[in-house]
């Protein structure tokens, strides 16, 4: 099913470097794969430097240092410095856990451009519960320090049923912390969020109310704070243009060196994702089976293949199609044209029933023990 040679391959622009799966937090909606505990090995400093150099040469310019918690890697400043020398715009995507003022200064001197700090909720109790770690006060201090040292500060809050009622307080907190950007990321149901979906998916009413509040706030802070609003696609009629199209823009490198067209692609069967220890980024991007798998439109089935919107949304997300219908070639079930669209309503109903049940089952936290149990 590999794409044909006729497809015009555009170079990568965005490189997501998942430096490690290690993380002191245990968020139950983590986007890392459920079986992350199986992938213990990590690339070394020289491997990462080579990856950064090769991807930059092809045209990648935005670089995310992510994980897991990227701060657990001692060579982070060295990698940041290497990235700056190559001309990347470097984003550190962190929980803030373990970030000291000394480190913030050191990273700035190394050439880091921006720090994105995640906060789980607007109250200490809920934040610490969701993170599975006492971290709320420290995160707020980190947010202040990020500002103090002249970085653009992006606050990221993942939104779901446990915190969606806090939307007004979350917005207030972002204003108080002086965020330059606020990312309100409605949970995407992959990885751990998929396993916890019954407990995380809000109702349509909850979502619409929160969206309205966020929209009004966006107008109020226009010119001061930019809001990135990630829509929950379960309440959309058409799927998202996932990854801006497979193998067109985004390149993710997992901690062990697996090169992925999106950070969830590991969950898809038979892709044989190549490893940067075996191939160059150029070989991986242009020639590998995995990156050519869903390029272009030839792989599509009906209703996608004859759809006049296929060039707009590329049939939606391959991982979501696989997770929800068992068929990674199918239309994303979010689409109302999908023959599997009913599974979305079933998921919504199931989450609602769970919320109303007397004994709601507990959240499954993201940690190595649960990873081994579930995989």
């Amino acid at each position, binding site marked *: 099913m590999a794409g044909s040679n006729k497809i015009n391959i555009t*170079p990568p*622009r965005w490189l997501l470097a998942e430096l490690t799966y290690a993380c002191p937090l245990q968020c139950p909606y983590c986007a890392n794969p459920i079986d992350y505990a199986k992938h213990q090995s990590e690339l070394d400093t020289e491997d990462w430097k080579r990856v950064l150099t090769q991807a930059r*040469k*092809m*045209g990648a*310019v*935005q670089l*995310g240092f992510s994980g897991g918690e990227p701060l657990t890697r001692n060579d982070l400043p060295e990698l940041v410095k290497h990235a700056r020398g190559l*001309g990347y*715009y470097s*984003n550190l995507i962190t929980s803030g856990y373990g970030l000291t003022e000394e480190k913030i200064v050191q990273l700035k001197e190394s050439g880091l*451009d*921006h720090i*994105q700090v995640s906060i789980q909720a607007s109250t200490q109790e809920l934040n610490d519960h969701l993170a599975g770690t006492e971290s709320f006060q420290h995160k707020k201090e980190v947010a202040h320090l990020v500002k103090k040292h*002249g970085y*653009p500060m*992006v606050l990221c809050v993942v939104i779901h049923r446990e915190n969606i009622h806090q939307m007004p307080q979350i917005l207030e907190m972002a204003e108080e912390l002086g965020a*330059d*950007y606020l990312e309100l990321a409605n949970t995407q149901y992959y990885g751990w969020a998929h396993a916890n979906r019954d407990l995380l998916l809000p109702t349509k009413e909850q979502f619409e109310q929160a969206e309205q509040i966020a929209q009004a706030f966006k107008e109020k802070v226009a*010119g001061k704070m*930019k809001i*990135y609003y990630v829509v929950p696609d379960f309440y959309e009629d058409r799927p998202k243009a996932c990854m801006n199209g497979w193998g067109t823009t985004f390149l993710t490198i997992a901690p062990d060196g697996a090169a992925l067209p999106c950070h969830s692609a590991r969950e898809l069967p038979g892709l044989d994702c190549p490893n940067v220890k075996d191939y160059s980024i150029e070989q991986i991007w242009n020639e590998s089976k995995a990156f050519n798998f869903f390029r272009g439109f030839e792989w599509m089935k009906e209703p996608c293949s004859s759809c006049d919107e296929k060039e707009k949304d590329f049939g939606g997300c391959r991982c979501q199609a696989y997770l929800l219908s068992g068929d990674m070639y199918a239309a994303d079930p979010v689409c109302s044209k999908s023959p599997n669209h009913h599974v979305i309503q079933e998921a919504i109903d199931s989450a609602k029933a769970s919320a109303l049940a007397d004994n709601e089952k507990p959240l499954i936290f993201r940690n190595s023990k649960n990873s081994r149990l579930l995989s």
Partner: protein
Amino acid sequence: MSINPDKTIKFSPMHRLQWEEAQQKNVILYPEGMVELNQSSAEILKLCDGTRTLGEIVSDLEQKFATAGLADDITAFLEVALKNGWIQQN
């Protein structure tokens, strides 16, 4: 939001203006985003270094490209740039 003609204009320290060899164009980089610039927009932004006012940017560019009547286009672009936070006036 409009440009104050008496104040100098500087490029925002929260953004980065950079030539991209692979794309053969100048871009503005900011957290998780990128704007691709055409040549004239890039020429304008390069002069936003905190030493020139709007009028000085116009006259410098008219001189550089040996032309006249650029004021309206440059003003319109800089107003967009100000609104997007790419430039600042103190």
